[in-house]
């Protein structure tokens, strides 16, 4: 039976949805006069799924046929699902027409593996090339680099794509071997390292020659599945940290394992570990944006992130010696470490205090979450009132605030 484009789209979008990356930011592709689209600066979420995830790109698999049998994957060979494959032209038409209507920022193309890595990758590259060259498409393209692909194909992909990603999926090689015996870390790290070198090489060249071609200007990213295998948060964050340092990744995505199989090698769970996933993202954010080191967030005593309080508050509670922070004197870096103060507020504080001493009222108006911040700062008018309080007592107090029922509705007057 011949499948319609709509049937294929429904199947191949469904199979691609577990890849959580949907970012369309960080690239620098400008449009030409007669071209279509651009990918500059901030990404745009054109809509959101009912679970609140951003929909920015047309995220599909080229095919869900796959020669591999990875226990955690819905498209694994042994799974009894309907199979489909797009033609090159179908993907191109969908992308161009969705983009023209402002539904999407671009294309995120991944694929199951038919025949072998190179055979599959060659098709992904062909689609990107066609979009760029025949349709003068300058929107965002994110291609999955299939582990085990040759350097030549990865190189060609980098010339057309804004971002490339190789998914490690399972946070340790030992566990990977258990759930996906046909895979290993080496075949994932090889393209990753190749990309890291090329991206850096082209970036240097671009500094000298303005018209040098761009190579994956949006960098590379990866995904780790959380909760399918026994690795702790410390292990996951150390791995992420090394990927940021060594391979210069732009982002590491954490995907709470959604039970898609009843394989005995995987845990039996009914709901994905969403809170744990959320805490990992918060910690990741602290490492990338707030200047925290990974060792400040997790260590030998703290193998898992605190589920009750966010990692920034947890850090403050573990380090009473660093507080209180004087809002009117402390460095920007230290102000950024105060719970309840974000990047925007921290910047405003540093700007505003040049005009005079800041008091509590100023902080609240600037947008600081005073309820949280009050325990950790000194302002011009506010005496610090945590000194005699023990971190444990403070923790209870903050947790106590949270447990007050949220949905108490106001009584009606009449």
């Amino acid at each position: 039976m011949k499948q319609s484009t709509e049937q294929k789209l429904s199947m191949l979008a469904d199979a691609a949805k577990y890849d959580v990356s949907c970012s369309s930011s960080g690239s620098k592709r400008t449009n030409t006069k007669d071209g279509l689209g651009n990918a500059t600066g901030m990404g745009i979420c054109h809509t959101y799924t009912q679970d609140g995830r951003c929909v920015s790109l047309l995220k599909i698999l080229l095919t869900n046929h796959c020669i591999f049998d990875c226990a955690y994957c819905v498209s694994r060979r042994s799974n009894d699902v309907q199979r489909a494959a797009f033609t090159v032209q179908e993907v191109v038409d969908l992308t161009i027409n969705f983009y023209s209507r402002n539904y999407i920022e671009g294309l995120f193309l991944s694929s199951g593996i038919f025949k072998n890595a190179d055979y599959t990758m060659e098709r992904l590259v062909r689609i990107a090339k066609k979009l760029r060259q025949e349709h003068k498409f300058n929107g965002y393209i994110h291609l999955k680099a299939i582990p085990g692909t040759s350097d030549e194909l990865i190189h060609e992909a980098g010339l057309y794509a804004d971002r490339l990603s190789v998914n490690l999926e399972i946070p340790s090689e030992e566990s990977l071997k258990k759930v996906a015996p046909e895979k290993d870390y080496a075949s994932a790290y090889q393209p990753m390292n190749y990309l890291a070198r090329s991206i850096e090489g082209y970036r240097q060249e671009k500094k000298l020659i303005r018209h040098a071609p761009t190579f994956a200007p949006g960098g590379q990213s990866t995904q780790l599945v959380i909760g399918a295998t026994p690795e702790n948060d410390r292990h996951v964050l150390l791995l992420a940290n090394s990927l940021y340092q060594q391979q210069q990744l732009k982002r590491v995505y954490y995907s709470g394992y959604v039970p898609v199989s009843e394989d005995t090698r995987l845990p039996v769970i009914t709901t994905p570990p969403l809170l744990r996933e959320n805490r990992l993202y918060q910690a990741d954010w602290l490492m990338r944006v707030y200047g925290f080191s990974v060792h400040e967030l997790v260590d030998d005593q703290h193998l898992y992130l605190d589920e009750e309080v966010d990692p920034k508050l947890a850090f403050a509670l573990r380090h009473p010696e660093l507080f209180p922070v004087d809002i009117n004197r402390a460095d920007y870096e230290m102000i950024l470490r105060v719970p309840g103060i974000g990047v925007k507020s921290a910047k405003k504080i540093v700007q505003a205090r040049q005009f005079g001493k800041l008091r509590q009222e100023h902080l609240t108006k600037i947008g600081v979450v005073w309820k949280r911040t009050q325990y950790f700062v000194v302002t011009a008018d506010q005496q610090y009132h945590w000194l005699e309080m023990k971190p444990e007592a403070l923790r209870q107090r903050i947790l106590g605030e949270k447990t007050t029922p949220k949905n108490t509705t106001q009584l009606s007057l009449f």
Partner: protein
Amino acid sequence: MIYVYDGSYEGVLSTIFSTFQRGKEAHDMVVESQYQPGLFHEPTFVTTDAAHARRVLKGMEKRCGQEVVRLMYEAFLSEQAGIEMLLYQFVRLAVESPENVLHNFREPCVLKLHQIGRQIHREVHRMHAFVRFQQTNDGLFVAMIAPDYNVLPLLPPHFVARYPAFCWLIYDTRRHYGIYHQQQQVDYITLQTHQHHQLAQALLTASEKDYQQLWKTYFKSVDIPERRNLKLHLQHVPKRYWKYLIEKS
């Protein structure tokens, strides 16, 4: 003193200029069409003067840098009640202070102005996201919007950069005007009829319906029911924007 002006941005700036020229403080600024004569005051009617408006902006730019010109315009587009007086207070503060007050967040009017600026940016960003073009028989891409603030004048740069080769129209159905793009040129237009909240199906190109259907299918397929979180969904896509979103209608 109560000042009455024509409701335009240049009008506000001319009024501010007037207060300095006359040396008479403003207690309120009212748009002419909404002005109701009162018993106890004598209003001043201000004639909009482009040269005066320019001088105010130039003076502000000198005191607060280039950024301020855009910020003030964006704040005006918010159409919030009392926005004229806020701009007036801000200009006075800037004129009376020896230093650049643009980032003096200790001053309520400065903070408020920046907050309004942020709201405007958020709305512009939402329009970048939520505009949905539909292609008509003659190749025109049409989108209807009804933004909270009057952000249409801020949209052209983004959409011109994206779709330079297309002919497109973005129409604000609440304020009854639109921006029409053709060959790198953008014009403001107003449609004759007021019956333009939805495009007639007959006007659309044959494949338009197919792509709308495909988009709906895609939107349905990417949902992960195990992760459902409608509160977060509504926070990102508030209901008031749904009527022009293909996937939500």
